[in-house]
């Protein structure tokens, strides 16, 4: 069986500057995989390319066995590849409920009410604030809304770009537990994080991105015990 997501020889950049310089990555069905790396290494660039917002200059991206390399973002969403971007990108001028409704704009529209109830069950705080404008939510609540909006599309693969950014340690722990339970429901997750230690506790496999290439990849355990990683990321 082919991988759910298979990226080969991917190169992208902005204008003449190349950011990703040939990366290969796979995510299997119902797998949870992390891409880790420090600031400015190209993690979000990778996500933007997978979701069709940026065009790859070389390489291929396959999802469920079909090429999505030159698909539009809307088509990619329709296939069930959902990207919850860095910085949440919720609709501040719409209510919480309207934000969720637009999560099902392209996909799973018929099951919108049921999925909304499910998201409200996962995030009771969103249920309490369903008619509040999303722009007036706290940072943590906005992150919940961004994930909730992604779940409304019934994703096959959920890409989360630094979901822990700006959250308190307690909330990060809660969030990671939640990501685990989303994955346990059979949704594959590609988690992009700087939070190396906690991410490695959560995922099965991980890739370490540095300067546009994967310098390290393997099972979470192998990576955790890798002396190079300790030196570069954990300062040990």
């Amino acid at each position, binding site marked *: 069986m082919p991988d759910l997501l298979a990226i080969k020889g991917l190169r992208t950049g902005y204008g003449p500057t190349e950011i990703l310089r040939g990366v290969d990555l796979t995510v299997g069905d119902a797998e949870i995989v992390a891409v880790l790396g420090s600031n400015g290494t190209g993690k979000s660039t990778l996500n933007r390319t997978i979701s069709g917002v940026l065009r790859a200059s070389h390489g291929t991206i396959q999802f469920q066995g079909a090429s999505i390399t030159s698909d539009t973002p*809307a088509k990619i969403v329709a296939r069930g590849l959902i990207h919850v971007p860095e910085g949440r990108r919720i609709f501040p001028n719409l209510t919480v409920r309207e934000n969720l409704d637009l999560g099902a704009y392209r996909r799973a529209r018929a099951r919108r009410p049921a999925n909304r109830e499910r998201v409200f069950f996962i995030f009771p705080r969103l249920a309490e604030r369903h008619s509040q404008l999303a722009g007036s939510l706290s940072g943590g609540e906005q992150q919940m809304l961004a994930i909730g909006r992604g779940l409304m599309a019934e994703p096959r693969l959920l890409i989360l770009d630094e979901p822990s950014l700006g959250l308190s340690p307690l909330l990060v722990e809660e969030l990671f537990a939640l990501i685990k339970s989303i994955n346990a429901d059979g949704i594959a997750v590609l988690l992009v994080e700087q939070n190396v230690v906690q991410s490695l506790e959560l995922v099965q496999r991980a890739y370490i991105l540095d300067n546009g290439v994967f310098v390290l990849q393997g099972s979470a355990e192998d990576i955790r015990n890798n002396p190079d990683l300790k030196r570069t990321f954990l300062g040990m």
Partner: protein
Amino acid sequence: MLSSVILIPAVLNGLMTGAVYALIALGLTLIYGVLHIINFAHGALLTAAMFAAFFAHQWLGLDPYIAAIGLTPIFFGLGYGLQRFIIGPAAHGEDRNILLVTLGLAVVIENALLYAFRADTRTINLPYAFNVIEVGSAFLAVPRVIAFVVVIAVAIALWLIMRWTDTGKAIRAVAKEKLGAELSGIDVAHIYAVTFGLGTACLAIAACLLLPTYYVNPTAGNAFVLIAFTIVVLGGMGSVTGALIGGLFVGVVESMSGLYLGESLGQIGIFVMFILVLLFRPSGLLGERT
């Protein structure tokens, strides 16, 4: 002081003129609020719509109010196509380019109309154009009353679309958060075109409301769009409610200054007020304070 016998009719007539201004401003502010551009082709498209309504009457014998039923979807399609296939692709994502493209479009449309129909000013004669309705001490022209009612209905319809349909929600989402919208599967180019289409459809309705009492020539739309532009600024750029209230307000100001300064100076009041508001409240009457 003028007595209420003169004042009330002036205010009512002002509200009715203002309603059509508001409708034209609504289209302009909608496009500005979502695409973040000033559509310089708005005036030329209004003129084109007035010609369309004129010839619908001349050639097909259609009453402008009937013609509106057909012209509204036609102009929606025209606006959609212009944005989707000309303005959008020609702009390459640069706002500055969009500005130039709409300006170029305005020049092309105006000159095409001038070439086809010359500079002649045309009017149509309708049996009811001079009928009046008596409301208290005021006599209100029937076409103006119809215009007022239609504009309110259009505003309500637009509000319902924005509030309750997926497309309406997507329009509001794209206005503030384009990337978030794209990643939710919203086709931004399509939503831009729908918005431009709605703005252009407003013009078709406005043209049909104007024609029973107004003339048409290849620059007829420009005077209205100049006023509409001041309304958009007064109401707060991009604010739909602001455009509506601002339009009615400007209509009353015009009517009142006509009363005090003489009919031909009515519009001076608008621009004096415009400058005053900009001096003391630069973000507009209803705009957020900056």
